[in-house]
């Protein structure tokens, strides 16, 4: 299931994107990178992904603004900040508005990044599974209610 997952990275620094690709090279994800949050949003419109990782301080749209949009439009996507700077208000906004899963700091540790991404991918699929099971339970509940109603009619 891991090899089908797509992870999207957004950072205005191209060398960071290259380093991230290198770090995750052997993990079997489909990795997409862009220096523009706007471009990332238009990609997501066409092709939703499992995990989005974004820098925070970028020209134009900040990472938190970007992830807040992702959260509203694609709430199932697991969201992570990977930022060189962190201040209190950024972290709080990332939690409250961006609904993030993790706040990672640069420079990162490759192993930690790999584990975090792997956990994020697992979380995505677990959430999907829970949602599917819940739907299944609802469907069965409705079926039971329908059969009970029918039984009542047949008896009456």
């Amino acid at each position: 299931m891991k090899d089908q997952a797509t992870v999207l990275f957004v950072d205005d620094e191209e060398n960071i994107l290259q380093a991230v690709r290198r770090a995750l090279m052997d993990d079997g994800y489909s990795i997409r990178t862009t220096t523009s949050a706007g471009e990332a949003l238009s990609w997501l419109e066409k092709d939703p992904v499992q995990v989005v990782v974004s820098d925070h301080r970028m020209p134009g749209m900040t990472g938190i603004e970007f992830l807040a949009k992702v959260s509203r439009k694609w709430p199932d996507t697991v969201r992570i900040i990977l930022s060189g700077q962190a201040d209190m208000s950024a972290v709080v906004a990332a939690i409250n508005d961006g609904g993030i899963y993790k706040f990672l700091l640069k420079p990162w540790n490759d192993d930690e990044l790999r584990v975090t991404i792997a956990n994020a991918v697992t979380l995505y699929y677990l959430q999907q599974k829970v949602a599917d099971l819940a739907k299944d339970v609802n469907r069965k509940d409705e079926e039971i209610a329908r059969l009970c109603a029918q039984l009542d009619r047949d008896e009456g």
Partner: protein
Amino acid sequence: MEPIGTVATVLVVDDEENILRAVRRLFMDEPGEMLTASSGPAGLDILRATKGIGVIVSDQRMPGMSGAEFLEKSREFAPNAIRIVLTGYADLASAVDAINKGGAWKYLAKPWNDEDLVKVVREARALFAQAKGNS
């Protein structure tokens, strides 16, 4: 599994008794149960013994076990609960811990606005119910 449609119980952890009292008063008229504990370990005891806790609200700075540490440990007993940090202590490292270790869904500042807190807890209860498919 709890009966369908039950409003999730909320657990509030804070080392200050007057905070717990104020929160209890605020939620008096809200549907659903609220439990309180004055430390992380006491909160874990409640989680261990109680089914149906769907929302956990924790202070960050407490003697002994921090809020982030408590929230991290709480996952063992209530993995699907929605976690909220309510703190008067604004510090970068602890905010990062709240998300990375504690898995906080919201990070709220003290003193809080009553309406906001009630709204956030309602949302958290709804989110928990939805995740369970009971909405």
